[in-house]
């Protein structure tokens, strides 16, 4: 019994000493400590710094201790366009509720509003970033969280603008509920594995809404990518999971809903592609499972450029696209099965919900347009309908084994 009390007493003492040790430091214009930099220099490990409302003209703030920095009522940290604003180099840092503006622009260094360098267990949340070069830049870090930030840039040209959220050589980062607008690439990942990107909105960016390269085993869920200069580009990665994302209104001469290049063994499920010039542009991507996606009103729903093998397209909805599938060769190794095609004209005599005549998603005209792009001007001409029909009856130029043998009669619902 005595023994037990001694233990309890010991724990209480440890807890109290911990509380005493972690003090809170207030930063405001009239406080003894009136800048974030001095607050960090006087703080001990695991302290909390509370920044009160006001404008703090500071840059090159280096957080080299495990601290929690909390802004009350969004204090403004103004970098005055002089360079990087906050750099985190320690583990276990939390930054919450700051309004960071005026990051310097440089052509030799990637200045960021907030940079995390080689640290673990960081949390960056509820920030508002404006007038930035790079927004949140995470390099060689792991196990962090970027949550509920709002990044609004003013990028016009690609060469003198930075990315909203950039990950470089990082692992196991969660990026959730962020809102990124008007930067170069909304979310950019390079050499970053096991990340979760969820519920973000990335819109109106100069180049890509989402861009990743050499980043394996990542999951992208419930994001919206809208009206970006060139849509979304994903390249050279393996085992990617993309669920329930929306790709919308990526219009333009060279823009895609999604550009896949050298993506292998991935899953693309439940996404919506609406009003894009090209829904998905696929190049050299193998063993991808496309399921339960919806393609509405795209110019090309799917454009297959070559070297794409054993991909499976099952149970997708293709609704009112000008071209459902475009191929540039007549070799096919991909499977199309049980999709709904709005331009399917067959019948279902045995009433099992599956059309009795197979559907050919590649039209002759899409083959011709691939060869001679100018012929697009004849779209929806009667002559084109006639040659498409004759090609459908006896395929010569289009892959004759590219068939959906079980086209659905009714639009699929999940």
């Amino acid at each position: 019994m005595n023994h037990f009390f001694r233990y309890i007493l010991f724990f209480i003492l440890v807890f109290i000493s911990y509380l005493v040790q972690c003090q809170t430091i207030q930063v405001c214009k009239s406080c003894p400590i009136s800048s974030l930099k001095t607050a960090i220099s006087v703080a001990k490990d695991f302290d909390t710094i509370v920044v009160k409302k006001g404008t703090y003209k500071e840059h090159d703030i280096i957080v080299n201790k495990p601290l929690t920095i909390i802004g009350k009522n969004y204090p403004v940290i103004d970098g005055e366009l002089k360079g990087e604003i906050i750099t985190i180099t320690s583990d276990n840092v939390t930054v919450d509720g700051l309004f960071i503006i005026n990051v310097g622009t440089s052509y030799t260094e990637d200045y960021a509003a907030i940079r995390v360098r080689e640290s673990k267990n960081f949390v960056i949340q509820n920030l508002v970033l404006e007038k930035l070069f790079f927004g949140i830049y995470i390099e060689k870090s792991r196990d962090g969280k970027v949550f509920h930030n709002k990044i609004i840039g003013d990028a016009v040209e690609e060469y003198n603008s930075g990315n909203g959220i950039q990950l470089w050589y990082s692992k196991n980062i969660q990026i959730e509920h962020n809102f990124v607008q008007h930067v170069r690439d909304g979310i950019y990942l390079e050499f970053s594995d096991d990340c979760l990107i969820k519920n973000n909105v990335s819109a109106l960016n100069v180049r890509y809404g989402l861009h990743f390269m050499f980043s394996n085993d990542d999951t992208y869920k419930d994001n919206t990518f809208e009206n970006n200069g060139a849509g979304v580009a994903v390249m050279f990665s393996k085992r990617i999971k993309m669920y329930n994302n929306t790709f919308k209104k990526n219009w333009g001469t060279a823009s895609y809903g999604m550009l896949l290049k050298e993506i292998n063994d991935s899953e693309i499920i439940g996404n919506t592609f609406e009003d894009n010039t090209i829904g998905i542009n696929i190049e050299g991507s193998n063993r991808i499972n496309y399921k339960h996606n919806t393609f509405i009103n795209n110019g090309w729903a799917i454009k297959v450029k070559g070297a794409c093998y054993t991909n499976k397209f099952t149970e997708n909805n293709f609704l009112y696209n000008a071209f459902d599938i475009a191929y540039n060769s007549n070799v096919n190794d991909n499977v199309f099965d049980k999709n709904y095609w709005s331009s399917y004209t067959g019948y279902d005599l045995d009433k099992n919900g599956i059309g009795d005549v197979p559907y050919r998603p590649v039209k002759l005209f899409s083959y011709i347009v691939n060869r001679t792009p100018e012929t697009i001007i004849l779209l929806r001409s009667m002559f084109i309908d006639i040659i498409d029909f004759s090609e459908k009856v006896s395929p010569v130029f289009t892959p004759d084994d590219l068939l959906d043998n079980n086209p659905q009669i009714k639009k699929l619902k999940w």
Partner: protein
Amino acid sequence: MFKILKYSFYDLMRSRWSYVYFAFYLLLGIVLLFLNNDLSKAVITLMNVIIVLVPLIGTIFGVMYYYNSQEFTELLLAQPIKRSSIFLGQYLGVALSLSMSLILGLGIPFIFYGLFESTTIWDFSLLLITGTFLTLIFTALAFNIALSNENKIKGFGYAILLWLFLAVIYDGLFLMTLVMFDDYPLDKVSLIGTMLNPIDLSRTLILLKLDISALLGYTGAVFKQFFGTSFGLIVSFITLTVWVVLPVFRIVFKSKKKDF
């Protein structure tokens, strides 16, 4: 001229064919709108119909009307009336009654559907304007053919051939040229090729106004740049007007010299 126009117009208004034509468009509009419930999709389907059917009906109707009213024309020619006003009056009578059937037939269901609250109103008006232009053009061409051929069978044959050429064969030749010369820059060629055929021109105009313009990829930028601007639109409408005016001039010219 206006008396003859009025006469031809009322004559046609009383005839069964105008009603059939009107009823056809009315039915088409109703079916498309109320069974489809997607307005922009309905406009695309309508475009397909207008591009193919309006020229065909304009041609056939024009030729038919000319041959049918030949005796009446000869009677009129015996009166002290200017030749040009006889033929122009007849032409306008046919063309206007056909245009009216088209505009009313398609317009009424769209108005009931709630067109004025919808954003597709501009696409729709463009559709009707090009439809009217096509009617004017093809009726004029039909009158030309009928004036040049006394033989009815020949006249009908040429009329159908003309429609077939502009609606189908022209596109085939156009496509072949584009594919054969695809090593050369073809932007300008395809623009000019489109301008030369009223059916292609109308189709491109409507397509680019609908949001399909997005799909036109990087080559389409040229077309979009041309047709998408007000300059391109004006040039296109001038071309369509030229397509109306030239055959009408030939009607006047030919009718003055012709022996009846």
